[in-house]
């Protein structure tokens, strides 16, 4: 059982009373994101890396690549392995030890975005069919959890992949080259709290909400992955609205930060 955020009743009331007036704790509108900054290639030892700041949330993503064996059922396709570390330095709620279900879910949703958008051409990552393919490790390191680390991690993963150099020369497989990407998936998360939908929730907002919906959209405006989490409910109309806004937000983020 993961330790969940505890929030005082008085703080909860405060957030709720602001919300009735259409306001948020940090003065944002309901669909406004915190400031985003992406710094690439921060780790020279990694094939690609990105440090994402979403407000004060900080996530570092590193990509490593090495040749390895393909899976038996896909002998001519590269392999993506996504892992997330919720290290205890990032939040009083994270504990040392093997990943808990929150960390596993986070890694799997980040993975879903990269995989289902087909951003990586896995067939192009085949070296010798059935024998040797490129294995792409996407490692997410949460540094400071100030809310919505899923969007930050997802953004970090694609930003790191965008600047990943395939280390072919290191393994005697020719010259290094930039990893080609075919899409830029963006994850957008909203919470529902007493019929209000709030995007890019902060920690306290996450703590009061029972329902969270993450929508991953592709450059063409399609949906390539979704995940509802939390013990609350959601009306279909609310899901439709989140998707509409998510597509728009994702486009803005993609244009501003990731498209050269």
């Amino acid at each position, binding site marked *: 059982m993961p330790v969940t955020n505890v929030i005082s009743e008085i703080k909860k009331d405060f957030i709720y009373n602001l919300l009735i007036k259409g306001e948020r704790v940090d003065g944002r509108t309901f669909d406004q994101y915190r400031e985003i900054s992406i710094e690439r290639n921060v780790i020279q030892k990694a094939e690609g890396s990105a440090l994402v700041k979403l407000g004060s949330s900080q996530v570092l993503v590193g990509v490593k690549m090495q040749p390895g064996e393909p899976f038996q059922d896909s002998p001519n396709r590269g392999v993506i392995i996504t892992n997330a570390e919720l290290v205890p330095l990032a939040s009083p709620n994270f504990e040392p030890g093997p990943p808990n279900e929150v960390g596993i879910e986070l890694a799997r949703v980040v993975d879903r975005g990269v995989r289902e958008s087909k951003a990586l051409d896995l067939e192009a990552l085949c070296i010798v069919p059935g024998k040797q393919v490129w294995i792409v490790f996407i490692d997410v390191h949460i540094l400071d959890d100030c809310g919505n680390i899923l969007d930050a991690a997802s953004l970090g993963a694609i930003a790191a992949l965008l600047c990943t150099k395939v280390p072919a020369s290191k393994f005697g497989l020719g010259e290094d080259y930039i990893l080609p990407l075919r899409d830029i998936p963006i994850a957008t998360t909203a919470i529902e709290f007493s019929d209000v939908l709030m995007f890019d929730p902060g920690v306290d907002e996450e703590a009061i909400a029972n329902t969270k*919906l993450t929508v991953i959209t592709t450059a063409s405006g399609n949906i390539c992955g979704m995940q509802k989490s939390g013990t609350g409910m959601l009306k279909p109309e609310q*899901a*439709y609205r989140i998707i509409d806004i998510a597509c728009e937000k994702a486009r803005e983020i993609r244009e501003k930060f990731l498209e050269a």
Partner: protein
Amino acid sequence: MITMDKTDISFFKDGLRLDGRRADELRPVKIEVGILTRADGSCYIEMGGNKVIAAVYGPREVHPRHLQDVTRAIVRYRYNMASFSVEERKRPGPDRRSYELSKVSREALEPVILTSFFPRSVIDVFVEVLQADAGTRTAGINAAAVALADAGIPMKSMISSCAAGKVADTIVLDPMKEEDNFGQADLPIAMTPNGDITLMQMDGGLSPEEFHEAVEMAMKGAREIYELQRKALVEKYSQLAGEPGKEEVHACD
């Protein structure tokens, strides 16, 4: 989801699917209530080729104790696949997929369980997938919801779960293995009979319009499953009620 190159698999023949279903048709569903003796509540479900058993224990004491919540019962959900349930033997024990499915499945059921009635206790839900054929999480949730009712756990409503998918650019209900493996999208949902969604996941590719269509189709499927869950529960309990009144005899009398 594995997507193959353009293979020769055709998903439709004369407007029907590989197993003869229409696009908006469920696979055959069989639900049996109370099939285990030791569990407080149980349910066996077959949805197409899926065979899943769910058992509920509790409310009972929490172990380890530090997990207990003084205001309500905690809910635990363990989704587990038998190693023989799939084509290639699965390594026994939990993997990352089953951790995630356990989490979202628990969160699909928790909204309707009146946990505040049982502070400091735990409601354990165990789901064993005996045979898998696409849609095990939805089958597990359907069985678990019935098992919770069978265990007499107070709930605000039933939870019913169903997936919709996209194959050959067509939205289909309750995808089977081939459609799941080689299809274009998978969207499992769970909901209350009122249409409040408690589980929603998606992978693949859908336009916003297709998403609407898929949600509506999955909800239609869930409503049909709800009727079957209800029928199964009513059948079991009306049978019990219908038994000729046996005089209760106590050992100490």
